[in-house]
């Protein structure tokens, strides 16, 4: 396909949901109940899905060089000028975009379909007015914003769509806004995101000021050049908590991601966001929007300094651990999934932080599939169980809703990272396992290397530089790093890896965006603290546990609530998407997306950091790590499952006893470490308090000044005998008026009405004037005598 065909197709894919949005806004009520939904399904996501598929196929047909050319030549137009700096609007066209675009459209499409079924069962009438069309309008708007986010090539537009998806999430969480908690949750979500965006804005400012452009690629180039030359942002000696300006820029941008992806300090909104309809939770708060944070980090990866990445890793690590622990004690099925989402997002961010760019995105996509599926299943369950979300009331639903049960199980297996770690067990050179298996495994491998073997690698690197300098046409160390990798693979591995590695090297050498200097940055990258690795792998054991717990409590065992059980059922319109997603979870994730991401990685990250390809390819360190890690990681799910089943096999009895045993821990986890409470006191209440202080100040402080001045005036006018009236005063003006009136009192005081006083005052003042004039106006002469003498005869 031609240069602009891709852009045009993708752009249409972005715009068609917008069309459906306006259509639904204006014509929605007339379209009525199912029709509006179908409009959204077809126009809102069907068209984009088709286009995305076309693009994907076309893209897979392109050669490496062709893709690079397309990426380089992608459309850029000037939208506006900030000062003198143009803001470009354009398409960031590379494999990652294509992959994400396809993933989003596919999942979104399925969820749209699902929603129709879902909404059929749900009352969308509030106070006799249908909000049905509104729901699908919002979904369409979300589709537009999310796809725009994926597509945009400039940070500013990234930010714009960023906010728009935030808006959609606000609107959709608050879809049942007639319920207090829903609108509260919506507001919480938006404001928490705003807090993140505050950081994002600061990052933007730094980019704008120091890199002088908002275009992702240009920014990266300038950044690299500035690093090489030590100019621009690297020239300033400003530091904050030991962070250089460049680092602050990276962290700032990452703050945005923290908001959207609900990372550790800003995670509080996501569980509440489950107040929205379940499809929304699946689409926005599991699959796509929350992953946008990871996507953002991936996009600004080339603007990240090692320190920034360390911070990213830290946040990710904390999130994945803490949230996983909370998930253990959840009894609300959606909340449970929400916390597992948080934990998985933590994994992705952590991966980004420790440099597993590919792994992170890979995990993003696999997670998108199985988490969306899990949420839809939960939706199915909740729907089936008559809006019952408490797992303690469920159980034994397998018989009533087998499809849901199976698909749910698939999801559980996937998120648990099920696979067969035995070396022999391979199909076409690929390990057997579900998405989670590979991605998580890969993340951990990289984490391991970063934690334990990084020093050797950086040493190798220096050696490699010299080596590579002579070896390839590309003198830059990054290229040589790539060559180094290639060499190793050539030297030590089976031949089938060679082409890929060569490709890798080739990629790196003709890689644009001055990745060279970026690689240099990473030479002084620190080791990852080993505890992070341990936490990560520990959580790898926790995850299967709580997932299996969740599944078992829901589907296995005996029914705990007969009424719920009797009501349970499932509807085709809803489980068809489940099946599709399940299949997706099985296959497409690995066979399709992984190579695309890897392909994107070279240009999108300036490959120095792409240590972690997957288990098969990479430095020997990672390879070695895989050698034994796969046993631990791969085996984790067995342990988790067994423990979970052991505890919940027959009812909740054992769980209850355990709860008693670990009561303090349980309480802390149950209350989510009291984050909400603390935030409520510190931020919300604090802010409102400050606000009231401000208002008080505004209303009364100036008034105080006024009274003060008035009082002073009164002192002056002690005899004017005016009392200051205090009513109806706020603001200086009354002060002026009142003070004036008092001065008026002073001024009028001599006007006693006694003519004799008048004469007295007049004479007195006149005398004073005379005296003054004599004193200052002129040197006091010798007076009458001299006159007399002068005129004497």
């Amino acid at each position: 396909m031609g240069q602009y065909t891709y852009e045009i197709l993708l752009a249409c894919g972005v715009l068609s949901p917008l069309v459906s949005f306006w259509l639904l806004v204006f014509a929605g009520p007339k379209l009525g109940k199912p029709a509006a939904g179908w409009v959204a399904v077809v126009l809102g996501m069907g068209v984009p899905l088709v286009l995305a598929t076309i693009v994907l196929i076309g893209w897979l047909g392109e050669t490496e060089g062709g893709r690079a050319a397309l990426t380089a030549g992608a459309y850029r137009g000037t939208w506006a000028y900030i000062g003198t700096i143009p803001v470009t609007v354009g398409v960031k066209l590379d494999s990652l975009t294509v992959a994400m675009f396809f993933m989003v459209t596919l999942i979104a499409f399925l969820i749209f379909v699902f929603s129709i079924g879902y909404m059929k069962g749900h009352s969308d009438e509030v106070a006799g007015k249908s909000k049905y069309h509104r729901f699908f309008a919002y979904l369409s708007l979300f589709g537009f914003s999310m796809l725009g986010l994926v597509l945009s090539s400039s940070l500013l537009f990234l930010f714009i769509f960023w906010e728009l998806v935030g808006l959609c999430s606000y609107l959709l969480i608050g879809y049942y806004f007639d319920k207090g908690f829903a609108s509260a949750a919506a507001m919480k979500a938006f404001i928490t995101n705003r807090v993140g965006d505050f950081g994002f804005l600061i990052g933007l400012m730094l980019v704008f000021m120091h890199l002088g452009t908002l275009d992702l690629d240009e920014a990266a180039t300038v950044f690299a050049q500035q690093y090489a030359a030590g100019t621009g942002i690297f020239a300033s000696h400003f530091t904050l908590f030991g962070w250089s300006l460049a680092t602050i820029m990276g962290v700032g941008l990452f703050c945005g991601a923290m908001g959207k992806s609900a990372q550790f300090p800003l995670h509080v909104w996501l569980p509440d966001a489950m107040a929205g309809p379940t499809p929304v939770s699946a689409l926005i708060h599991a699959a796509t929007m929350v992953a946008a944070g990871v996507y953002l980090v991936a996009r600004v990866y080339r603007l990240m300094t090692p320190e920034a990445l360390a911070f990213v890793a830290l946040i990710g690590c904390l999130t994945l651990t803490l949230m996983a622990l909370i998930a253990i004690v959840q009894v609300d099925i959606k909340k449970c999934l929400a916390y597992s989402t948080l934990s998985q997002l933590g994994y992705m961010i952590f991966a980004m932080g420790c440099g597993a760019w590919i792994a992170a995105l890979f995990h993003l996509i696999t997670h998108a599939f199985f988490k969306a599926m899990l949420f839809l299943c939960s939706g199915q369950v909740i729907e089936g169980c008559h809006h019952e979300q408490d797992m303690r009331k469920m159980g034994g639903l397998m018989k009533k809703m087998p499809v849901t049960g199976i698909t749910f199980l698939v999801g559980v297996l996937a998120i648990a990272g099920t696979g067969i770690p035995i070396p022999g067990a391979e199909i076409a050179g690929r390990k057997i396992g579900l998405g989670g298996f590979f991605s998580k495994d890969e993340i951990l491998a990289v984490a391991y290397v970063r934690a334990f073997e990084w020093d050797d690698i950086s040493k190798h690197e220096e050696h490699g530089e010299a080596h590579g300098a002579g070896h390839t046409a590309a003198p830059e160390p990054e290229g040589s790093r790539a060559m180094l990798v290639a060499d190793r693979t050539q030297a030590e591995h089976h031949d089938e890896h060679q082409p890929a590695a060569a490709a890798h090297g080739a990629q790196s050498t003709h890689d644009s965006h001055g990745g060279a200097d970026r690689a240099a940055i990473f030479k002084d990258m620190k080791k990852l603290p080993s505890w992070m690795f341990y936490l990560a792998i520990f959580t790898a054991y926790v995850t299967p546990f709580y997932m299996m717990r969740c599944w078992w409590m829901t589907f296995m065992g005996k029914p705990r609530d007969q009424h719920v059980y009797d009501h349970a059922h499932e509807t085709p319109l809803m489980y068809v998407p489940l099946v599709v997603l399940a299949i997706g979870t099985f296959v497409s994730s690995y066979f399709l997306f992984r190579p695309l991401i890897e392909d994107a990685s070279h240009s999108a990250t300036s490959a120095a950091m792409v240590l972690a390809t997957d288990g098969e390819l990479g430095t020997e360190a990672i390879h070695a790590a895989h050698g034994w890690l796969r046993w631990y990681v791969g085996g984790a799910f067995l342990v988790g499952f067994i423990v979970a089943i052991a505890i919940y096999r027959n009812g909740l009895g054992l769980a209850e006893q355990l709860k008693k045993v670990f009561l303090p821990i349980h309480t802390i986890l149950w209350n989510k470490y009291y984050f909400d409470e603390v935030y409520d006191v510190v931020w919300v209440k604090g802010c409102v308090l400050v606000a009231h202080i401000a208002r008080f100040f505004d209303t009364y402080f100036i008034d105080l000044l006024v009274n003060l001045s008035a009082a002073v005036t009164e002192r002056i006018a002690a005899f004017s005998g005016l009392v200051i009236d205090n009513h109806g005063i706020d603001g200086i003006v009354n002060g002026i008026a009142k003070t004036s009136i008092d001065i008026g009192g002073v001024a009028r005081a001599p006007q006693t009405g006694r003519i004799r006083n008048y004469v007295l005052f007049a004479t007195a003042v006149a005398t004073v004037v005379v005296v003054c004039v004599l004193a200052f106006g002129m040197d006091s002469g010798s007076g009458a005598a001299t006159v007399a003498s002068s005129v004497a005869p």
Partner: protein
Amino acid sequence: MSFLAQTDPWAGIDVGEQLFAFSPMIALICTMLAVVTCPLLFGRGPRPIAIVVAVGVIVTFYLAMRVAGVVSTGAISGLSPGGAGGMLIADPLSAGFQIILMVFLAGIFWLWWMGSAATERNAPEFFILLLGSALGMALMVSTLNLLLIVVAIETASLPSYAIVGFDKRDKAGAEAALKYMVFGSVSAAVMLYGISLLYGLVGSLNVADLAQYVATMGFHTGESSVLLSVGLLAFFAGIAFKVSAVPFHFWCPDAFEGAKVEVTTWLSVASKAAGLILLARVALTFCAAVEAPLNMQFLEPVAWVIGIVAAVTCTIGNFSAYKQESVKRLLAYSSIAHAGYMMMAAAVFVYAGSPGYTAGLTALLVYIIIYMFMNLGAFGITALVVWDGGSDKLDAFNGLMRRAPWLAIPMIICLMSLVGLPPFAGFIGKWWILVALGGLDSTLGWFLVIAAVANTLISLYFYLRIVVRMVFAEDQRAAVRAPVGGIALVNLCALALLLLFVFAQPLKTSAEQLSRGMYQAVASNTSDSSSARVADSGS
């Protein structure tokens, strides 16, 4: 020089021309006589008197116009050869002021005719007094002789005293007259004392000689500076009384509140204006007498005194107007404040010294004219309201917008014009004063500019109080019954205020020409008159 020195006092005096030059005043006197005799012929009814007065005013106006035409080429000095030395002066300034005075007198007459005429029993006396004070003011602005200044001031004051307490059955009027009288006579006496000292020092009653003496001796010679300064200040006290400048303003509110509205209107503009013109003339003479190098060291203190007095007058006037319940009194205070503004202009032309800086005088003249309309309008409306409701308290104005829009709207215009708010002429008046002050480019100038604008702000509040009562206050009283003529009068004033804003140019131009002429005239006659005197006072 002594009288004996002059052999033939009548040599080279064209009596006819000179009589013509002062015909306006003569006409006024004739009118007064006519008013006296009129009752003998036609009875004491207001109508014949009114006719006589109307004719008299018109004739005077006509004559003043003609005189103005003649003297525009050069001043004529009364009953003396050459430009100066005479007691009476007819020049553009005096003629111009007489014209303004007649216009204003006509306005007052109209107002009287609309309101009091019906009930007035002593029309002849009233007009004799009114015309008398008018005559006095006409004299005030056309002399430079200390003796005649005193006479003129008294001529203007004595009838005023009487006319303030004209209504015999009115307690307030009687009290007002008493206060006015006592205060006036005291300040006149003080002024006389000052004049006696000055005369003693200079040995002449001619202000030109006084100026010359001061210029040559200055304050810094040590010679008799005490007597000189005391004398000068006492002399200025007399003028300050007419202008009602602090601290000689006390009479003003009481007298104005007690008097009938027409009288208040008359005094509020005419006597102040006359006083200011007199001040202007004296000040000009001083400036002209003083050579450039001297004038800073000598005139600057004077200017500062006048300037500060002006600023204080403004401020006290404005502040005192707060919380006034009687509109007449409120406007009385406001007139004090406006006297302050005008004195700022006076400060300018004392300060500037350098001949040819006419901005100050120009501003003063423009302001007087505009102020005349503003006050005529404001007091006129007050009068109409008073005649209708019998009270001049603020409450009488409640809901005027509904009860009499054709009074309320011009009132708003007049008040806002008094504040000095565009697009009304009051702003133009202030504007020229500010320009004149700014033109000084001196600390005094900018100090006064700031004082002036600050006072604008202060004054807004109490003017608004009336507006608030008129527009916002709900009031169920019946509509105001006002004579059409009166309504016409006040609306004409309001209209004039609008027009004088839009067409500010002609007024300014003419005032500028007039003042420029003044400067030349004064400069010339001072220089040629007092050379001899300087010689022998020097010896």
